[in-house]
């Protein structure tokens, strides 16, 4: 058994040696060398000095990129500092619902003037749509810079659609207790005092809505 194994091993070794000796003189064909030399000439191997220049170019590109970014940041800041001034100057008054003739300054409802002063940072400009007043949510508004007023509250026999027809506003004084009729809070200590109110009369001569002014 051992003898056979040794014979096999010997046979294998001889076979491998024979194969190696058969192939020991094999070489790549000539055309491979020709192609390689052509590739070498076409490629123009980059010398080390050029490689240094390449790395310098990378540095230059990096510096240029940093400068560009810095300039962009400065330009953006300069522009954002300039914008609010332009916006403030060019900003118009917010549009108001056209329920009052424009010639009556006292009756012109300028809503939210006190709370919506254009700030230097308010950008971009927002478009406001005319609001429909509701009795459930009487929001505070002002007719003049010194006055604060609620929205118009429709009277019981009127509906919201009638308020769109326009009309005339008359400033009146009503008892403070009238606030309670419209669901507004009443200070009981000043129960007997009067409070200013604007009554909106429609084209039909009837009172359509009321708002309270402070």
């Amino acid at each position: 058994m051992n003898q056979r194994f040794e014979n096999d091993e010997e046979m294998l070794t001889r076979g491998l040696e024979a194969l190696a000796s058969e192939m020991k003189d094999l070489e790549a064909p000539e055309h491979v060398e020709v192609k390689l030399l052509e590739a070498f000439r076409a490629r123009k191997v980059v010398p080390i000095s050029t490689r240094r220049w390449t790395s310098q170019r990378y540095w230059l590109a990096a510096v240029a990129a940093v400068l560009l970014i810095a300039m962009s940041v400065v330009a953006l800041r300069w522009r954002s500092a300039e914008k609010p001034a332009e916006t403030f100057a060019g900003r118009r008054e917010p549009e108001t619902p056209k329920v009052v003739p424009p010639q009556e300054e006292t009756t012109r409802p300028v809503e939210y003037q006190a709370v919506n002063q254009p700030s230097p940072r308010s950008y971009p400009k927002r478009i406001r749509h005319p609001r429909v007043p509701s009795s459930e949510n009487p929001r505070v508004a002002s007719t003049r810079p010194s006055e604060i007023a609620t929205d118009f509250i429709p009277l019981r026999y009127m509906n919201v659609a009638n308020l769109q027809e326009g009309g005339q506003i008359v400033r009146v004084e009503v008892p403070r207790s009238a606030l309670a009729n419209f669901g507004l809070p009443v200070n009981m200590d000043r129960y007997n005092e009067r409070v200013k109110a604007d009554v909106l009369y429609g084209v039909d001569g009837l009172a359509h809505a009321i708002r309270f002014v402070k």
Partner: protein
Amino acid sequence: MKSDLNDSELLRSMLAGDEEALTVLYRRRQGAVYRFALQMSGSKTVAEDVTQEVFLFLMRDGQVFDPAKGSVSAFLLGVARNYVLRRMRVEQQLMPLGDDVDDDVPVLHASNDLCPLEDLTRAETIESVRRAVLSLPSKYREVVVLCELQDISYGETAEILGCAIGTVRSRLHRARALLLAKLRPAAEAEDADSATVKSARCFA
């Protein structure tokens, strides 16, 4: 004279743009690379392509060679190994070869010292060994090619393959066992054929 320079110096000169250095280095090392690729793949076409790719790689990325890690020769064979394995993966030639005759089989020249019968026997032996080597799994084939056919030391083979010397030894041992297992049936069949002929002659 460029031919007096060692491989590392030639490589450095080549990378600096010296064409003659490339020529000398190529002529010195292309044979080993080509034979390795041929013995690994069994295809002359693949061997030519791999040889070309290896030296193109050397021209392009030769600066990655580190003399501290090994010789230029080992480096080239390592690159060749990678290209061969990649090529074989692509061509799905990792399966053991069957009985189909490869049209790229290198021509084996008969020796002039032997008589025609011995010559034929030797050629058959070489062919069967070549087929057996090609049928080995690649990790065994490469150690057989490097250690047995290229006569490279275990240490250098370990450098080329990127493994320990012990791994090379164990793979070679296993590879030889596989080769014996593949070659034994053929030898037995040959013995049986000759016995049949003998008995037929006696019977006649």
